[in-house]
């Protein structure tokens, strides 16, 4: 017990000094569990997020847009892979994590429980959803756990590309013909509030924040990250003539913040509890692919085993 306390002291001192915690270092069980939960949830979000965007690959309206979208969705898969590996450095197993996702024991970002209903949604997701992810991940890149922090640095670079491509896509539509303008404004109307909810509940209702911040798994609160995103995004919307769907939106000269209306968190909790428009569809789709791929995974494992044995006898 004394040993444990000493280790904890050393651990907390390290974090206070701004040093990174590495996989083989001692860490409190709670730290390990929180990190696995966060990293896995992040990985799940990447791979579930492939579905709403993948939904438009076959319909992208130009070859260039099709290639950009394919590359983006492929990047998301790569991020998923990278993050599952980061979770494995903490002793988790990718297969267990994926099964926990499929049987509803683990969550993913709620934003992906909304449908992509027009081509403009692809631009809006790149701009807003990836934009919000960057704000969050720029913070996580400074977190205390080495492998997660390094994964975030790399992932952020790619997300920045996605955001720029998304905004460029949105700008073209916003400057296009009436049909395109209507399409992109409609997409913004549907995604705006959902994106703001990606940052989670208000600070006073965020149960995890205190612990996460003490150990520098998280360095800023939900509300402060959300505000940064809002301040960044609103001028970008105005610059291309889009309207933010918020009648109460106003700029506060004193704080230099954009102040938004009331977020309807009932909707967020509804989606978290499994009742968003696509919760069941997304998981059913992933489950179907996973089950249909079962024989492929077994064949690959078997083949690897046979090959290994062959090497042994040679």
């Amino acid at each position, binding site marked *: 017990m004394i040993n444990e306390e000493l280790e904890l002291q050393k651990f907390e001192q390290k974090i206070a000094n701004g040093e990174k915690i590495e996989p083989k270092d001692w860490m409190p069980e709670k730290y390990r569990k929180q990190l696995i939960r966060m990293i896995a949830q992040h990985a799940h979000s990447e791979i579930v997020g492939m579905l709403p965007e993948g939904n438009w690959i076959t319909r992208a309206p130009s070859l260039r847009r*099709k290639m950009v979208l394919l590359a983006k969705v*492929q990047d998301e898969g790569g991020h998923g*892979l990278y993050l599952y590996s980061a979770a494995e450095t903490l002793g988790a197993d990718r297969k267990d994590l994926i099964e926990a996702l499929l049987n509803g024991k683990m969550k993913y970002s709620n934003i992906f429980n909304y449908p992509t209903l027009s081509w403009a949604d692809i631009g809006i997701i790149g701009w807003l959803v990836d934009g919000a992810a960057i704000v969050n991940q720029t913070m996580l890149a400074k977190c205390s756990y080495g492998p997660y922090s390094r994964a975030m640095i790399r992932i952020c670079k790619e997300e920045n590309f996605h955001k720029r491509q998304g905004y460029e896509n949105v700008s*073209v539509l916003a400057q*296009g*013909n009436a049909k395109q303008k209507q399409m992109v404004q409609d997409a913004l109307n549907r995604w705006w509030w959902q994106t703001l909810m990606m940052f989670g509940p208000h600070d006073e209702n965020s149960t995890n924040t205190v612990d996460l911040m003490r150990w520098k798994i998280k360095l800023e609160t939900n509300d402060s990250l959300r505000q940064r995103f809002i301040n960044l995004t609103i001028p970008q919307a105005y610059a291309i003539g889009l309207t933010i769907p918020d009648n109460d939106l106003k700029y506060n000269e004193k704080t230099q913040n954009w102040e938004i209306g009331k977020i309807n968190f009932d909707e967020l909790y509804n989606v978290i509890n499994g009742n968003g428009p696509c919760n069941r569809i997304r998981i059913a789709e992933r489950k179907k692919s996973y089950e249909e791929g079962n*024989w492929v995974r077994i064949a690959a494992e*078997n083949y690897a085993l046979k090959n290994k044995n062959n090497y042994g006898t040679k």
Partner: protein
Amino acid sequence: MFEKKIEENLFQLLVQIADDKLILGHRLSEWCGHAPILEEDIALANIALDNIGQANSLYQIAVKLENKNRSEDELAFFRDEREFRNIQIVELPKGDFAFTIVRQFLYDNFSFLLFQKFCDSNFIELSDVSKKIVKEISYNLRHSKEWILRLGIGTEESKFNTQKAIDKIWEFTNEMFEFGNVENFLIEKNIIPNLDTIKTDWELSVKKIFDNTNLQIPNISYFASGGRNGFHTEYLGYLLAEMQIVARSNPNVKW
């Protein structure tokens, strides 16, 4: 550069091959988010991207030759079924993982041999772009070949599924060695290779891997034909309907 007749024939040829790549890329992209393992979600998306990128480059050369102010997107999104010149094997629905891998393996082998030869084409634009493309195909081929081995040797079930896919696809393989009516003319000018030699090499390399895995080449007498002249399976129309819907519902705009 070339005389008119050669340019017209070359245009036809480039569109044929580009159509193969675009349609195959489309089918591969349908896997995105649905593959058996995450690594394959990434790999298949990547290979889809390679194919669509290759289609894009080939269309660009084609429209330049044609010189009618058409864009590569017009070729992709504003032609109907009868105007597409791809072979039918690439338009077949993606099927299960075994079907996708078998098709990919058979096509990658063909495509690799073809683009190797294209590197020596007298048509500089084609030989230049082929040097880049052939590298990509060699990676694609390595991927599909390794999967044939895994599936062929892995388990009884995987072998059964793979053989079933081969039996289903085989009648569509012969079309790879047809270039419609442009063939002879361009061969004489050393612009494209003789497909008979490619066919012999293709059979050898396919057979070698199948022999390693005890997969059988089916003994059939009927082979599909006609894609190069715009004769397709019924699947292509639905594929194009999906691919072209957004572009066609709002034409003449920038995307």
